[in-house]
Each structure stands twice: as structure tokens, then as C-alpha cells.
């Protein structure tokens, strides 16, 4: 008994030192607010007819899936001290490709067509990521400018692909990905969690993570240590594009329509916020994929809460901004030091000369 307790304490202690603890606390706080409003907010019910789980928590998880995907990709790009502004547009391109393909396919309902649509969408998204990567790694363009260009061009490309229409199609396969259930649990959530875990495993169990951090902190020094930055940079941008493609399929397949102007619109900013809330500095270096996931969940929870509380839609952005600023302030070591100073003198921390 005491052992489990102490183990729990140790676990909580470790969590408290994670950079994304404030994101976790933010989610908890928002949920508490919602619970005070409606005591049944956290309830999860089982639909007896089809065995589906339902409830606000599941809604949050489902809606967060695309943001989790682009945040994970963004996190790796940011770790190399880059940024990927194009993810929102890539989502639209991916959705447009999938919908256009299905609309033109001879047998849109077949699993084969759904698989082809998926493959095509992900290939095009990866190619856009590759373009970013090549421009950043070899041409040495600024990541901000490079991805700003692909962001604008991507949105245009999506419109060209659909001829400016919001193309709709029907495919049971894709619809299953977006709305289907496995054991009552949403498929999108399962895929998102699986992909995030897979990438986390890949990055942390290989030396990829350390190398990405190294080039993010000091590319010159890393090169001198024998690391080849080009391949790494291309990998992270390509991965970011691929994940944005997955996110695009997620968000268009729910309604089986791509809205070329609105799919993924401004989501790159949500992803950047998620990464920052997760404790990864925009200057690059040390990164936390788990933090990015927490950040993505927080942003979705926030969106849901705003709707649930009935905050007027005009005030929504301001409400969001306030919550995010509070979390960023809580994270800032400078602000924390300020509060610590209030409580008493701190010992000066200094490099050992």
C-alpha cells in the first residue's frame, strides 16, 4: 500500500518536472470549470445499440486528432530551429486530392479506391514536405519564408485541384477512418495515438532525437561532429508534410467534403502554440513530443470549453489568448523566479568557473 503510494508520488514528482506540466494543469482546470457548469460533463456512456462510447471527453479526443498530428510534425521541425507554416495548407491539399480522386473514381465505395485515395493524398503531402525540406536544407532558405511560400502555394494548389469547388465524395473506407469505431473507440483517435507513439518511439529509441536536438542547438558544431544535417532536415519537413496529410484526411473525411478555403485554415498557428505549450522552445533544441500532444489536447479542450460555456463567438479568440498567455507565463522561468524571489532570497545559480 505504502509502496504503491510512494510509487505514485514518484510518478507525480516526475510529471511535475516535465515542461508540459502546465499544459496538463491547464486541461485539468478547464475540465473542472466545465464540471462545475455541468456535473455530468466527464461522463462516458455506452450506446446500447452499437456499443459506441460517447461523451464530451471522447469528442475532445476525436477533434484533437488532426491537431495532434500536425503538432507532432511541427515539434520535430521546431526542434531543428525551423518552423513549418504550411501544415494547414497541406491539410487542404491532402483533402482535395483524396476527394477529387474519389469523385472521379469508377468505384468510389471499394476499399481499393479508399486506399488509393489515402495513398495519393499522403504522397502529395509528403512531396510538399520534401520541397520544404530541400529548400531549407540545400538551398538554405529561411524555414519561415520557405514554408510561408508553400503555405500560400498549397492553398492555391488545393483550389486548382478542385477547380475552386468544395468537392464532396463518398467512400465508406475513408468515412470509417474519420467516424468509425473499434470496440466503441473512435478510429481517428486510435490512429493518432498510434502514429504519435510510433514517431516518439522512432525518434527516442534511435539516435534521431539526439541528432535533431544537436542540429537545432548548434548546426555548425553538429556538422563538425560528423552529423549530416541535410538528411535530418529533409526528414523532419517530410514527416511534417506527411502528418499534415494524415490530418487533412482526418478532417475532410468526417464530412466527406473538402472546404478548400477553410480546411486546416490557421491550424499551423494552433500547432505552433501546442508545441510551445508542450515546452519546446521556438529557438530549437530540446523537444518534447509528449508535450506537443498535451498542447494539442489543451487547445482542443479550450475550443470545446469556449463552445460549452457559450462564450460569444466574437470573444472566443480573446478568451483563448488569455488562457494560453497564462500557461506561457506559468512556464516562463523568469516569471517563476520572480514569484520565488517574493518568497525569499534564492541562492545565486552560476556556472562553476
Amino acid at each position: 500500500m505504502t509502496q504503491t503510494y510512494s510509487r505514485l508520488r514518484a510518478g507525480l514528482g516526475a510529471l511535475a518536472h516535465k515542461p508540459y506540466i502546465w499544459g496538463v494543469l491547464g486541461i485539468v482546470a478547464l475540465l473542472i470549470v466545465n464540471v462545475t457548469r455541468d456535473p455530468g460533463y466527464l461522463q462516458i456512456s455506452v450506446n446500447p445499440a452499437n456499443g459506441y462510447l460517447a461523451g464530451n471527453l471522447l469528442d475532445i479526443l476525436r477533434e484533437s486528432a488532426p491537431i495532434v498530428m500536425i503538432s507532432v510534425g511541427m515539434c520535430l521541425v521546431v526542434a531543428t530551429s525551423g518552423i513549418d507554416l504550411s501544415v494547414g495548407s497541406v491539410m487542404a491539399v491532402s483533402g482535395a486530392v483524396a476527394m477529387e480522386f474519389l469523385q472521379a473514381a469508377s468505384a468510389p465505395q471499394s476499399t481499393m479506391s479508399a486506399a488509393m485515395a489515402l495513398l495519393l493524398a499522403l504522397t502529395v503531402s509528403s512531396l510538399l514536405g520534401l520541397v520544404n525540406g530541400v529548400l531549407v536544407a540545400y538551398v538554405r532558405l529561411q524555414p519561415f519564408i520557405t514554408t510561408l511560400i508553400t503555405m500560400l502555394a498549397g492553398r492555391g494548389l488545393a483550389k486548382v485541384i478542385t477547380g475552386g469547388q468544395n468537392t464532396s465524395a463518398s467512400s465508406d473506407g475513408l468515412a470509417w477512418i474519420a467516424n468509425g469505431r473499434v470496440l466503441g473507440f473512435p478510429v481517428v483517435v486510435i490512429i493518432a495515438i498510434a502514429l504519435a507513439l510510433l514517431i516518439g518511439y522512432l525518434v527516442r529509441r534511435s539516435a534521431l532525437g539526439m541528432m535533431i536536438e544537436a542540429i537545432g542547438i548548434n548546426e555548425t558544431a553538429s556538422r563538425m561532429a560528423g552529423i549530416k544535417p541535410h538528411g535530418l532536415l529533409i526528414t523532419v519537413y517530410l514527416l511534417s508534410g506527411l502528418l499534415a496529410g494524415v490530418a487533412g484526411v482526418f478532417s475532410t473525411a468526417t464530412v466527406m467534403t473538402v472546404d478548400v478555403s477553410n480546411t486546416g485554415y490557421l491550424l499551423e498557428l494552433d500547432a505552433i502554440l501546442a508545441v510551445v505549450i508542450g515546452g519546446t522552445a521556438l529557438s530549437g533544441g530540446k523537444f518534447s513530443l509528449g508535450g506537443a500532444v498535451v498542447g494539442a489536447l489543451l487547445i482542443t479542450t479550450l475550443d470545446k470549453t469556449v463552445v460549452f460555456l457559450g462564450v460569444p463567438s466574437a470573444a472566443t479568440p480573446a478568451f483563448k489568448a488569455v488562457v494560453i498567455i497564462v500557461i506561457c507565463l506559468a512556464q516562463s522561468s523568469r516569471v517563476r523566479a520572480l514569484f520565488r524571489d517574493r518568497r525569499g532570497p534564492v541562492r545565486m545559480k552560476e556556472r562553476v568557473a
Partner: protein
Amino acid sequence: MSLREIWSGRRGKRTGAASPTSRSGTGRAGSGPVVQMTGICMDFPGGRALDEVSLTLHAGEVHALMGGNGAGKSTLIKVLTGVHAAADGQIVVDGRSRTFSGPADAESAGVTAAYQETFLCTNLSIGENVMLGHEIRGLLGIDWVRTRQRAGSVLAELGIDDLDPRLPLSGLSPASQQLVSIARAMVSAPRVLVLDEPTSSLEAGETARLFQVLDRLRSQGVAIVFVSHFLEQVYTISDRMTVLRDGRVVGEFLTRQVERAELISTMMGSSLQALQEIGSQRRDHRVEPSDQPWYRAIAVAQQGALEEVDLEIYGGEVVGLAGLRGSGRSTLGRLLSGASRSDSGTVEIGGQAIRLHSPAHGLAHRLAFAGERRRHAGLIEELTVRQNVLLALQAMRGWRTPVARGEVDALLGHLLERLDLDAGAADATVGELSGGNQQKVLLARWLAIRPRLLVLDEPTRSMDVAAKVHVQAQVAALAREGVSVVFISSELDEVVRLSDRIVVLKDREVIGEISNGPGLSVDTIVEMIAADRDEF
């Protein structure tokens, strides 16, 4: 009009003290010390940094602060200039006990530090840099004309009025920038000027100019604290010295009364003998070129940095590269290891011709380059010691095959022990380590790949003698193990002590190659470089 006269009015009002020391500096005998620090104690998380340290500074003297890395010099200076608050002890300035709340407070009491040139703003003009924070304000904000005039007069006062305040700072050499930073410190007309390693990046002629400026300040009655690892410079410029070791004062001398040997042994006790041992060890293991060289550089060159060079390297040999900064010695080291790509020429390794195109390529052939800019192009400061050591080995193996935890631990344990680093430091962030220990980490990184050729560019730069001894001992040990080492250093005695063969460079060209032997001394190389000049 002297700075002191310009500003005496202001200080007279501020301190209410009697008129400051006259500019001839003769006030030394009459008045008491300008600064008296007694019983200064300071603790850092790592332990006690200063233990009951005392320091007395007189007007019109250059006071050298001596001691190894970690002896507490920097900490003492930071207490003196108000950066740190001492845990215990007293600072008396002009007979008044003070506690400084920060550098600005210390400055208003007349204690200022001239920071290294890296703290200047290269995008501003010389005058703006000098006057930064002291701009003269008129009715409409900053009065740039008068500000520039003041900058000019401060520069003139230091005898460096050949620097035009209107020119951009970026056009100046590091040496001149160093002078500008002194001018910047002198704007507030301090009684005490602190210089921490002002000459570490200067050539001999530039140092002489700096010393002229210091002489001038000394004759104006300024007390100067001078910290340097260069013994000869300390003997040239300083009047008195305080020697620190492990956070304690171990000696206070008049410079002219203390022998170099005595000073050195006070500073580090047993290191002197160690150096002599390394020298004799190396002499016993001299490699005479025999058989075939395993490594051969043929006509490697880099445009604008190095003319074509041929060089053969044998196993277990130490090749010293001697020459001034800018002579092409670093470029040669980089080309040999693949750290830079050569514009022409090839490298033959074991008879196979190769064009080295990247550090990674060099690494694949187990050629390693430890550069002189450790922070900029060597270590990843925010990563741990473990990760930094691992980086090159991991890069060599590729990202897919991470080095197993057990292997890392074994390797790290072995390397840390070999390089005399605390085993507990493995998970410390590299940025927290001292310069000497950072160099050890960099060395450990390259030892981890078991290099065939290790190029060391200024491995002992800005280290105390004990750390320098340690690095040299490592080089000797590596050569014994059959590693070829290319050793580049500004300190020719190190080159002569360690090398089997010395390649002398000048003006981006190799001007000669000498086999080391009993007849060779530092002077031989200096003469070679100087004689070469006469031919042109």
C-alpha cells in the same frame, strides 16, 4: 584636459572625498589603498568558490590576479565589480565600506570592468560603442555631436585617437575592439579598471599597444586589475600580484621580487615537474619517419587561405604546426581532417586517393578535428556530457543503430577516468563546465571513435597551466598508442615539447619542415618565421 579633470567635478560632488590622486600617480605612498577587500567568501552550488580572500589595490598600479582555472579569479572579479554579492567579507572603496547591488552600483563607486570585445555591438560605430549608456543628452534627446566629441576625447585620452569614432566597429581588428572596450569603461572615469584576459586573442604587436594604453592609465592614477594566463605579459605590465589557488590567496608579491619559477610553483605546485616529464617521455618515443606514411596529403589548398601543401604523416607521430594566427595553420588542420573541403589536391589514406568533402567523410576514415572555437563549432552546450561525447561515434554509426546504453556507460566511464573528469559529471550540461573540462569533453568525443588522425587546434587555449599539462600528457599518451596527432598551438614551447616534426607556416604557405631534436628550441622557429620575412 585629462579624463580625470573632465570628470573630477562630478565625482567630487558624488563621493565628497578629497581630490583624487593626481595624474602622475605619485599619490600611492601618501593615500591609502583605493580598494581593500577582506575576508571575502562566496559559495556556489559546487562548493566554496572564495574562502577568506583579500585583495588590496593601490592607485596607479597594475595588479595582476594569478591562478589556475577555477582558482577563483573570475569570481573575485565579479564580486569586485558588483556582479555577485559576496556571502561574507568587506569591500572598502576610498575608505568607505560598500556593498554593491550590481555592476551599475560598482561603477558609480568607481569600479568598472572592460569586457571582452565580444560584448560590443559590431553594428554600431566606434563612438556609439564607447558612449553606449553614457550618451550626452540635450533638449531634443541625445546630442550626437557632443556625444561623438566626448567619445573622441576619451579615445584621445587613451592615446588611441587614430580610431575615428564615426567609423563602424565591425571594421576594426579584435585588438582595436579590445581598446574600444577599454575606452568604453573609461568613460565613467573609474578609479579601478578590471581587465579579464584582455590579451587572449591578441598578437604580440597588438598586446604592446594595449600595454601602452595601460601605462598611460597607470600614470593617470587608475588602479588596474589585470588577469592573464600569459606569464611574460604579467611580468611586463604588472607592479604587484595576488596569487589564488582553490579559492584562497596563496601569495601576494611585488612583481619584480618574485622569480618566474617561484610564481609558477606557487600557482600550481606539482604541474611543473609534470611538464618536464612529458617532455622527456616524448623524447624517448620520438618517431623517425620509416616505412610508408599511412596518410599523405598531396597539394591540398584552399583559395585565399592556404597555398598548396604536401604533407606525410606516419603512425604514432606528432606533427606540430607552428605559425602565427592567420598563417594558414588552422586551415591546414581542417583540410587534413575533412573539416573543410579543399579546393584542390587529394589525400591518400593507405595508398587510396580520396577527396575529403565533409567532416562526416573525414569521420568515416577516422580523422578527427577538435577546433579552437569550442563553443561555436565544437560542443553542443545544452546537451549533456554523455550526449556530447557520444555524438561523433553515433554519427559514425548512423542514426538507426543507437549505441547501446551499456556500451555508452562503459565507454564513458573509461574516457572520463582517462581524462580525469568527475564520473558524476556525465549527466551535467556541457555549458556548465569550465573551459578546461569542456576541452576534455571534446577530446573524449574524438577518443570515442578511436581516431587514426587527431587534429588539435589550440587545445590549450585560455586554460590554466594544470589543464594545459593534462592536455599535453594526453597527446603524448595518444602518440604512444599509435594515433597520429597534428598539434596546432600559439604556444611554441608546447609545439616543441610534443612534436616529432614541426611544419612552419607563414602567410598562408608552408615555409619549412623541421625534424625535432635536441638542437631545436622555440627560438629556432621564431627565427625561421622572422628570417622568412627578410627575404621579401
